């Protein structure tokens, strides 16, 4: 089943494309995954650059920055804007790396059934004991934009995760 995932995803996401791509009155999303590459410039200084995973080699241990950009392309304000992002398979969320200006960031440890802030998240281990959840327990991240997003307004959210 795992091997079919990319195919399934492409089908699921691409098939209805023509019908909805230009539809008005919605929020436009753009998502990208990047890696940070340290390069030494001509002056001998180290510079950290973000490179699209399309243009970089990504191997286990690398940290990937997942960013999502949203734009209200409608002519009305959008309320209750919530962005959710499961931590991709094979990726390990880096503690305190989730960012999003003007958003409340919550995490799920139960595959998106419920979300809460890190201080209120607990998990039950194999022996039935409850303990405080740690970054590696997180399965999903949810950003709730605090204020309605006015027409034409843009924003972005991101998090970092390590390729296992």
């Amino acid at each position: 089943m795992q091997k079919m995932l990319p195919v399934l995803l492409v089908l699921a996401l691409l098939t209805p494309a023509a019908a909805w791509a230009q539809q008005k009155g919605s929020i436009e999303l753009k998502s990208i995954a990047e890696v940070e590459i340290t390069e030494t410039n001509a002056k001998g200084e180290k510079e950290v650059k973000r490179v699209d995973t399309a243009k970089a080699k990504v191997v286990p241990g690398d940290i990937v920055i997942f960013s999502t950009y949203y734009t209200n392309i409608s002519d009305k304000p959008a309320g209750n804007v919530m962005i959710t992002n499961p931590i991709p398979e094979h990726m390990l969320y880096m503690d305190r790396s989730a960012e999003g200006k003007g958003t409340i960031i919550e995490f799920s440890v139960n595959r998106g059934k419920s979300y809460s802030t890190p201080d209120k998240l607990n998990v039950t281990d194999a022996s039935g004991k409850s303990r405080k959840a740690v970054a590696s327990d997180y399965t999903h991240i949810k950003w709730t934009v605090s204020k309605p997003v006015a027409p034409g307004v843009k924003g972005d959210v991101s998090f970092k995760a390590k390729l296992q």
Partner: protein
Amino acid sequence: MTMDTTKKSNHLTVWGIIAFLICCLLTAGNARAAGTPAGTTITSTVSVSYNLGGEALTAVVGYSFVADQVVNMTVTKNSDMSAAPNQTNVPLSFRVTNTGNAAQRYALQAVSKATNSWTMNNVRLYRDNNNSGSWDTGDTLYADAGTFGDLQPDASIIVLIVADTPNSVVSGQTAAYDLVATAVNAGTLNVSVQTAGPNTAGVDTVFVDSAGSAAGDVPRDGKHSASGTYTVSVVAPAVSLNKTVTVIDQWGGHQPIPGATLRYTITATASGTANNVVVIDPLPANTAIIPNTLKLNNATLTDAADTDAGDVGGTTADTVTVKLGNLTSASLMQTITFDVKIK
């Protein structure tokens, strides 16, 4: 490789179900030391929900990339070994582990350190099939990178350098060997190469190995190495003496009659390392030394106790004393001769 798929929908239920399915499929990955297998597609799926003019809407966007192949391996030494002179099939044990994220095989080489003053004979490589740490007849002799087949990520094998100790070695002498493993593409005899230039759409190969013990084994060169040392074991020193006598009578015969000459020959050999060897031989009763006949390795020694190695009666009355100094198994046989006359 990437896929950028951006879609929007105002059909909350349809996309809700799809998003839910995707979430279910994205179950937690298997934790592996070697990491996510090369070629795995990593997919991030983002959904947004919002209200617009009283209508609940959603949109989903996905982004994928492929985990590239990291070539990494470690060679570690399990044990050094002591080796007696002339001992055969002495093993040095190593572990070779595939710490990359794809199946790999390895070209193996045993390399004598440049600092070695001597080398082992008949150096071979074996896979220790029963993990005994010693060489057994059931172990597999290495011929090329294909001999031991592919090693899966996280898997390891024990490799033995097996060699024979020369005879002419001295207790405590050491000889170090590097076991060098070079990454070879699975199922082939082609040495792995890194993907040059920028990222490609396929699975790229990246070397991440660290520097090893062998000369020139630098980080990220698709090789790793570790060294093990043979130490010649301390053999209890022993000196073997052999003494023969030839009778030469004054009539040209071989009768031990008064006036006949007895020519004694003493030979000395050592095993291990024997220091300050002294041969002491009292003259037989009723005989007298024939002056200036004492020889060591065919070179005449004076009878007086002086700076040369031997004397007759000087150190001890009526006794031949020859100092042979330090002897080892590598030393030539020492030959002492002297003549006495029967009184």
